[in-house]
């Protein structure tokens, strides 16, 4: 007797449908699992056997062959356990084939017959072609995000079998709080005292999608500012939200209470992170890296110069293309990776270098530190801001700054203008249309000409300055023309935070 149960596995951040075929025949009792399972998946045999027995069901004393089709696709993880168990029950005629018709199964089995959560439910359910999907209780909220399939759940295998047989009613899906991560209120920009330039740069970064580098001594508030950037970005909508949800699900991270990820993600990997952790990949399965988990949100690299240079330089290609292709011997996967990069760095190892002469580090040490950030990477930062520690009076008293809500409204309006030019944000404006969408006043042109003439600005830098100035003008509601003060502010927010060598 043969049973075919639909299920799915994960390839990168995408789900792939898998047909679990179970064949039971007379012969020497045995169990064969074929169809390119990874080691975890191969262990399904032992988990399924124990789960069946502890659920009061019988393990057939027959020849059992389980095939996971398509055979070429590598099946990762324990998510097929449940489908294999159900397939066995159907193939041994413990369940009628009609009760599982159009029904897909996803989940790991415990030895006691309990159903356990697996990562990547959202993309896997999205890949299924079925009417109903049965998932573990913890995964109901994730599975419901897709919306196309009816989601059913059970806590144990025995309960599931009883429900399928119609002996018991299906349990109600749990409330939305079950699988939710703790709801942490987003930090508000009103908490930031002083820092007028840092705040301005943050707003421009959010409005124009410009990568931002903050340089300053410890305690200047770099991290505090960066953590408030996602709150300024517009919430994710439509496909964007689904993609972000899929990535978070595939990474095995908890989803927000509502299921769908609508807040732009914020990822802040430690500087000990490896290139694979940042980019994606891995030996066990193709896991999305930090840059993909920051897709459509913010990737914050604190202490940027402490990251190994090879790790940082691996960011350059995804920064350009918005997608990272990870190729391994077994598979090649493209992860989405369109993120806003925010870097924070100390000006030197001692952190005290403000103006020249202030730092305690030997010149050679400082140069070695600065060399960690390669020129091409630094060039990707449209905004480079020097921060200093806020004054005590600002910290203790002082008026609170504008709140996130006020600034986010301006950002949304500016982004709306950018969309009218046919791009998602001004950072994506091609150089060829700059003359058309960002014409300069005479005074603005004069400032740029002077910078170019004295060699303080390169051709590529010029385009970047004009894009940032476009965003500044959009935020100011200044109309189509880019004026002198927009250009000057854009220039001022692109400081050469890394020193060239000083000749005596």
């Amino acid at each position, binding site marked *: 007797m043969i049973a075919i149960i639909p299920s799915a596995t994960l390839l990168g951040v995408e789900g792939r449908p898998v047909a679990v075929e179970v064949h039971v025949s007379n012969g020497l009792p045995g169990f064969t699992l074929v169809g390119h399972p990874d080691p975890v998946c191969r262990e399904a045999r032992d988990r399924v056997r124990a789960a069946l027995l502890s659920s009061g069901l019988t393990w057939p004393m027959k020849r059992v062959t389980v095939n996971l089709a398509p055979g070429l696709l590598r099946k990762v993880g324990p998510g097929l356990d449940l489908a294999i168990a159900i397939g066995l029950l159907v193939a041994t005629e413990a369940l009628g084939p009609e009760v599982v018709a159009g029904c897909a199964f996803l989940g790991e089995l415990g030895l006691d017959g309990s159903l356990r959560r697996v990562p990547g439910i959202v993309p896997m359910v999205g890949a299924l072609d079925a009417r109903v999907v049965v998932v573990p209780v913890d995964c109901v909220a994730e599975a419901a995000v897709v919306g196309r399939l009816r989601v059913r759940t059970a806590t144990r295998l025995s309960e599931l079998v009883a429900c399928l047989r119609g002996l018991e009613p299906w349990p109600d899906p749990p409330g939305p709080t079950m699988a939710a991560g703790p709801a942490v209120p987003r930090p508000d920009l009103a908490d930031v005292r002083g820092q007028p*330039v840092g705040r301005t740069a943050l707003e421009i970064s959010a409005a124009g999608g410009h990568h931002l580098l903050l340089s300053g001594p410890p305690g200047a508030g770099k991290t505090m500012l960066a953590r408030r950037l996602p709150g300024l970005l517009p919430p994710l909508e439509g496909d964007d939200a689904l993609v972000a949800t899929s990535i978070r699900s595939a990474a095995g991270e908890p989803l927000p209470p509502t299921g769908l990820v609508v807040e732009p993600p914020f990822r802040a990997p430690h500087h000990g992170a490896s290139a694979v952790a940042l980019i994606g990949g891995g030996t066990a399965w193709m896991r999305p890296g930090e840059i993909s988990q920051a897709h459509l949100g913010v990737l914050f690299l604190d202490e940027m110069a402490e990251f190994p240079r090879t790790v940082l330089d691996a960011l350059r290609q995804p920064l350009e293309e918005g997608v990272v292709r990870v190729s391994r011997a077994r598979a090649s996967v493209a992860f989405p990776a369109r993120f806003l990069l925010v870097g924070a760095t100390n000006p030197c190892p001692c952190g005290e270098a403000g103006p*020249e*002469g202030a730092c305690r580090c030997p*010149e050679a040490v400082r140069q070695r530190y600065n060399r960690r950030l390669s020129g091409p990477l630094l060039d990707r930062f449209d905004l480079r801001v020097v921060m200093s520690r806020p004054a005590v009076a600002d910290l203790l008293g002082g008026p609170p700054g504008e709140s996130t809500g006020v600034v986010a409204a301006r950002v949304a309006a500016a982004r709306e203008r950018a969309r009218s030019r046919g791009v998602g944000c001004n950072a994506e404006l091609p150089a060829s249309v700059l003359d058309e969408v960002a014409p300069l006043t005479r005074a603005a042109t004069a*400032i740029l000409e002077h910078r170019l003439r004295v060699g303080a600005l390169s051709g590529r830098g010029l385009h970047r300055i004009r894009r940032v100035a476009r965003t500044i003008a959009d935020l100011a509601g200044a109309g189509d023309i880019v004026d002198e*003060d927009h250009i000057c502010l854009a220039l*001022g*927010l692109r400081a050469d*935070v890394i*020193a060239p060598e000083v000749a005596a």
Partner: protein
Amino acid sequence: MTRPSLSSGSGVAPAPAAAPATAAAGADGTAAAAAAAESHSVPAAIPAEAFVAALAGLPAMGHRRLVALLRRWSPEEAWRRVGDGRGHDDDSDVAGLWCRAAATVDVDDLWLRHGRAGVGVLRFGGPWYPAVLTDDHEPPGVLFHRGDPAALDGRRVGIIGTRRCSRYGREMAHELGRDLAASGVRVVSGLAAGVDGAAHAGALAAGGAPPIAVVGSGVDVVYPRRNAQLWADVAAAGLLVSEAPLGAAPEPWRFPVRNRVIAALSEVVVVVESHARGGSRYTVDAAAERGRTVMSVPGSVRNPASAYTNALLADGCPPARDATDVLVALGLSTAGPGASATVTPDVRPAPDPLATVVLDTLGWEPASLEGLVLRSGLSPGQVMVALAHLERDGWATSRQGWWERVAHG
């Protein structure tokens, strides 16, 4: 300045009568050596300076041991004793070390190499050795040099300071070097990055009195490398000396030792900028031991690079506000401060009202854009427009995101 000018062959022991003329005619050390050798009747083919150079190259040979040797014996005798393992009476280990090292040295070849490199040798007790060092309580046993030792004749002021100076420090060093050299005062410094190099660059720019550099590495080992042009210029216009033998690397211990030579060669030592625990302390201590006047350039109390100079002022050290203060200390001028400043009209366009506000806010200390916005109460955009205009017209300059006011002149 009565001595004949010698291009590089002054390391030669001059023969009694006609030696100055002969040496002056010799184009380089080798020719001069040959000339000197002819003028001696005995077959002393190798001059005394060659033996001193060989002695200086021995391991564990500091300036005290070298001077002790030269006080006791003639250089030839000292070299012979070292070769026999009798170089050190009290320490047989050192004597053995010297003996083994000396066996590998060919003095003749060594001397030729000095000639080829254009490097002269001034030995303790030798005729061209600077008199001011002879009386020192810790004199160098030898000074390798490029350029003209006659540059030492005249008033000399040491200008020292940190390598990690601020723009203010670099400018002050440059101005002091320039104005002192223009007044005929020789600028003595270490040719390091930062203050030292700026002082020498200023002295060269003035084209007045020849600059004098005392370096820590061998005179043929340029350090820091980016100062290579400055080294060459100083050697061409003035004098470049070092206690270290040819090829000696700029090891850290050589610099404090070098600093005492700067102190000994200077009549007045001016500290331009130095951190609280900077290397300038060694020079100042050495100058104080020798009774030299130490002057200090006042700086902002908020600038860590001025921490030591301001501390010196607090200790009663006279301030060096400009070259005139130093000239007064030398007894060369009785004018009040500011008299040496040549008055040139300011040709920069006057800043517009907004820029004037920002320029006043900027003051004379480096400020970040953020600091200017907070202090002026203007928006970041307004401040940046003003700064862009100020920078274009030469009133302000920025580096690494920090803005500084540019002084007139």
